């Protein structure tokens, strides 16, 4: 049904194990981790209005996927979206500004933590309706095809979205029309405070398989694995061969949101400790970099120090940035 006029697609070069880019991946993951830790501090210090849903523990997915994309490719994100935004190219000062409701924020303070959108980096917006962006990402993919570009769209969502019908409506159409969209399911095991096994019948990947969508079920804690799967799926989308579904098995180290401190009623401390000590995506990559002599402890520490400095400057910028003028309340309702 869609136009086949298309620019010649370029299959991204696979990244070799020796490629220095892995250090860049590490840097991006550290950036998300430290950003989120700072967000938690802002919340605890009562400096941030509202709530935030931290991405800590899932960094390998955003980075592994977004590093397979071009700036002109699209993503849609979720309420747990800071990681996706940063991985796709958002700057930390404007991110913090948005979280604090400042005019310098990506949405002039009108969106906040759950709605960061950045057209320049192809981020069509985080979405606070669970599964709410499945249609938007699929529509962006359709638009890319109709406009004759080879852009692709990535739809990030969590295991909670598996309960939403819209996702299946969108996946059905994407498969029918071979749209360049990649559905990335971040299964962090919990729909808010309920284990996904209590809400989700059958196999998760069987949902995509039913539409004959290419499905990859992977370790979401290993950024190399995520990136390899993403490269494959993005290449397929670019050459017009249709959508794909990457099921990333992962874990949310913090609560559903920053205020979800007492979690014993839905998951055990020992479960959390096991994931943090054995399955931390940053630690897994750091160990691998060291083992393969691609970076030593000193180099990794230097990365953290750099990012730490960047975070401090960014958060100071945001704390000192002005709020929007009161008259802005009626602006941007209509274009």
């Amino acid at each position, binding site marked *: *049904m*869609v*136009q086949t006029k298309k620019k010649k697609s370029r299959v991204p070069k696979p990244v070799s194990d020796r490629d220095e880019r892995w250090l860049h991946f590490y840097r991006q993951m550290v950036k998300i981790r430290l950003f989120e830790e700072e967000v938690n501090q802002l919340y605890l210090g009562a400096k941030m209005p509202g709530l935030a849903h931290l991405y800590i523990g899932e960094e390998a997915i955003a980075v592994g996927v977004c590093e397979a994309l071009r700036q002109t490719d*699209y993503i*849609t994100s979720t309420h747990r979206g800071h990681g996706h935004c940063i991985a796709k190219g958002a700057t930390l000062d404007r991110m913090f500004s948005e979280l604090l409701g400042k005019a310098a*924020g*990506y*949405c*002039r*303070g*009108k*969106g906040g933590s759950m*709605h960061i*959108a*950045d*057209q320049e980096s192809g981020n*069509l*917006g985080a*979405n606070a*309706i669970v599964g*709410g*962006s*499945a*249609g*938007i*990402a*699929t*529509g*962006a*993919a*359709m*638009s*890319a095809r*109709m*406009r004759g570009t080879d852009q692709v*769209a990535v739809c990030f969502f969590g295991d909670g979205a598996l309960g939403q*019908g*819209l996702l299946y*409506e*969108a996946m*059905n*159409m994407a498969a*029918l029309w071979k749209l360049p969209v990649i559905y990335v399911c971040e299964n962090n095991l919990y729909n808010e405070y309920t284990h996904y096994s209590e809400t989700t019948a059958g196999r998760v990947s069987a949902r995509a398989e039913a539409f004959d969508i290419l499905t990859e079920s992977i370790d979401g804690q290993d950024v190399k694995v995520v990136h390899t799967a993403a490269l494959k799926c993005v290449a397929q989308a670019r050459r017009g061969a249709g959508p794909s579904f990457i099921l990333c098995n992962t874990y949310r180290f913090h609560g559903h949101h920053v205020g979800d401190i007492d979690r014993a009623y839905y998951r055990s401390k020992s479960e959390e400790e096991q994931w943090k000590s054995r399955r931390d995506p940053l630690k897994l990559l750091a160990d691998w970099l060291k083992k393969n002599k691609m970076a030593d402890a000193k180099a990794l520490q230097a990365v953290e120090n750099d990012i730490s400095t960047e975070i401090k400057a960014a958060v100071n910028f945001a704390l000192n940035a002005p709020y929007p003028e009161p008259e802005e309340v009626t*602006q*941007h*309702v*209509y*274009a």
Partner: protein
Amino acid sequence: MAAKTQDTAVSEAKVREITFAQAINEALAEEMRRDPTVFIIGEDVAEAGTPFKVLSGLVKEFGTNRVIDSPISEAGIAGIGVGAAMTGMRPIVDIMFGDFLTLTMDQLVNQAAKIRYMSGGKLKVPLVLRTTLGAARRSAAQHSQSLHAWVSHIPGLKVVVPATPYDAKGLLKSAIRDDNPVVFFEDKMMYQLKGSVPEAEYTIPFGVADIKRTGTDITLVATSSMVQVALEAAGSLHEADISAEVIDVRTTVPLDKATLIGSARKTSRVIVIDEGYESYGVTAEIASAIAEGAFYYLDAPVRRMGAMDVPVPFSPVLEDQTVPTAAKVAELALGVCKNR
């Protein structure tokens, strides 16, 4: 003031009589020729041309790449429309019955309507969602509702309720060119209604009510097919020596309050007629705006007439009671004008 003087490039020279459905079809075809980013997606829109045959022939000219038959997935196609609109296209999403708007509500209300605002003015959603309203087609409770009040309640959406072929064509062309999400309601019972439509291109701006008939004793404010009902009522009131002014709102959002208030100040009596449920409906909003703006000029309370607050029944004997008719409007108007 009659809004027609503001319409662009109206050629009085070549005017034909065409149906409401043909007017819609022409507007779509013209805009699709004019702008390659315009496309249609919906259930049975291509070869079938919709069950109402409003889109007949479009697929022949524009092909299945631009007139796209979708699965029966209203939420999905609304969502795809939003995503395509955000990324450079101008989708027209066809929702066969207005009752099915319920299935699109998240995409319309939480996504389309808010994306511009939530993004601080960076993103836009030039989406048109065409759908229907109106009862009396013996289609029972799930295919007969007029739910335009729901979307009129949501900031960020524009809402169009045309009453004539001329207005339908000009307003639909404006809707397609608008950079905002627009919900466009067509009364199923009006598709065969004929009216004068110029051959030359024209558009009609939003937020400009149209005085369909001038009068001095009472103002009948109406939407969509209720404009035809009001005109018929005005005809019979004329025989009773009552001069009724009929104002077609044309767009509930934006609402041309100035024209409504101006007419109310002139006639001092107002009835608002709409086919949506009366409670919490469009009539309430309009009546309130008029009461606020013309209170000291009014000689009688502003009266409202909407659909009865019942699910639309199937049996013709029952269904016909639920919607405003010319006779009912005239009867109410006679009462309002009693002490004239």
